[in-house]
């Protein structure tokens, strides 16, 4: 698991530090993804759960319009999408850290020469990739079920989705790691996570909604907001992660 220090990297001189750091992050993330891709457990369960949430919400919030069609107004579809993503992400991050706890690999990771922040970023990247894969399922699903023009403006949509996913991945990793050994972690994780994620949630929903009604300037505003949000919480995470995971 620890990355073997290759002698030739010392030749790079000043940049050795950053290279090592990024390599640690990449190794960490790749480790998670490789384990996951082998069994695909979290991926399948997350995706199916997200799809079920979308379907449940359809029963709850769609109603027949005058022509007898079941319609979702433009304002509701983003809600379906992002609530499904949020719920499945919560499950996924809990499960990802559960795995570490069950096989007791966390101690080994912490003892490795990789700096803690690289560990944390690696975990966040892993979670990001898994969430992206789930979104690749859920977004087309919403497009299919609700006839929502989610792909009308691909560039802002992509930026929005990536930034929102990054925010959830960063904040979620911190809290999931923090609660890893707690008895009531399944219920405490949403309890602590969701209030912190509210601004991101608002931004994602309003941004998607703006794209659906064809107002890209509004969407770009929310994208900039998400940038600020992500930056603020990456800083907060780096401040606190160190002291939160000393097991």
């Amino acid at each position, binding site marked *: 698991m620890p990355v073997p220090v290759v002698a030739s990297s010392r030749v790079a001189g000043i940049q050795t530090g950053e290279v090592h750091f990024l390599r640690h992050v990449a190794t960490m993330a790749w480790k998670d993804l490789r384990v996951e891709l082998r069994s695909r457990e979290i991926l399948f369960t997350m995706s199916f759960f997200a799809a079920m949430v979308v379907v449940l919400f359809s029963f709850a919030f769609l109603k027949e319009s005058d022509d007898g069609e079941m319609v979702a107004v433009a304002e509701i579809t983003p809600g379906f999408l992002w609530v499904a993503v949020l719920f499945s992400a919560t499950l996924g991050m809990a499960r990802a850290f559960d795995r570490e706890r069950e096989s007791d690999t966390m101690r080994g990771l912490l003892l490795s020469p990789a700096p803690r922040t690289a560990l944390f970023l690696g975990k966040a990247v892993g979670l990001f990739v898994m969430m992206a894969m789930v979104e690749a399922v859920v977004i087309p699903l919403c497009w299919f079920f609700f006839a929502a023009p989610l792909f009308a403006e691909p560039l802002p949509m992509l930026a929005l989705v990536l930034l929102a996913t990054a925010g959830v991945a960063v904040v979620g990793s911190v809290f999931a790691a923090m609660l890893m*050994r707690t008895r009531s972690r399944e219920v405490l994780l949403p309890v602590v996570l969701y209030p912190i994620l509210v601004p991101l949630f608002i931004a994602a929903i309003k941004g998607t909604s703006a794209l659906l009604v064809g107002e890209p300037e509004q969407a770009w505003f929310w994208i900039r907001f998400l940038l600020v949000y992500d930056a603020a919480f990456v800083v907060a995470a780096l401040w606190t992660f160190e002291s*939160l995971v000393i097991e």
Partner: protein
Amino acid sequence: MKKNAFLAAAVVCALGFAGTLYLAFYRAELDGLLFFNQKIFYYHVANAFMLFAATITCGVYSLLYLRKRQPRHDDIALAAGELAVLFGAVVLITGSIWGKAAWDKWWDWDARLTTSLLLWLTMVGYVLVRQYGGAGSERMAGGLAVFATVNIPLVYFSVSIWRTLHPQTSVVPGLQGGMRAAMWSSVALWGIFYVLLLRLRTDAARAERRLAELRERALDAGLIE
């Protein structure tokens, strides 16, 4: 905080409660729109200020605790967290009642009330983590408090923009004379009251901690079983 300072502050508080209520009910002008029900406003705003003060206190001391591991910082953070829940509950309930009086609706998704709701929910989460988090819950709750404090401007900003598509219903007009005196003196009063409560609760937290340590040492020394 020295004992004399504490007592002095307590006396000021006692007089302050009577004084601010006098100012609010006898000296402040009667509002032209809401008449008597506007009087809720004075303590509601003061408590809102204190909600933010308590949350920021909790966040700052939590960060200090996470960095330096001094237990007294954690005591203050715990006290501030619980007080944030108290003040938040007061803000939400009085704000909701005021909303009913002013707009005939118990809840309106007004930007400020929603921000307070989210902050309150986060601090309730803080208290829950401390209660049920098991071992190491001080650190975990501390992390949450830091994130909550960083989140304050982001929440306010996003909720305000979320609300600009709806009619502005927030009512903090330019206050004149009697109303302004009543409001700011209420804020000052509740500031002092907050500090007093913080002191009391911090002392209780510290006492609990030392008692637990004492029990551990007695157990180790074989004095009790």
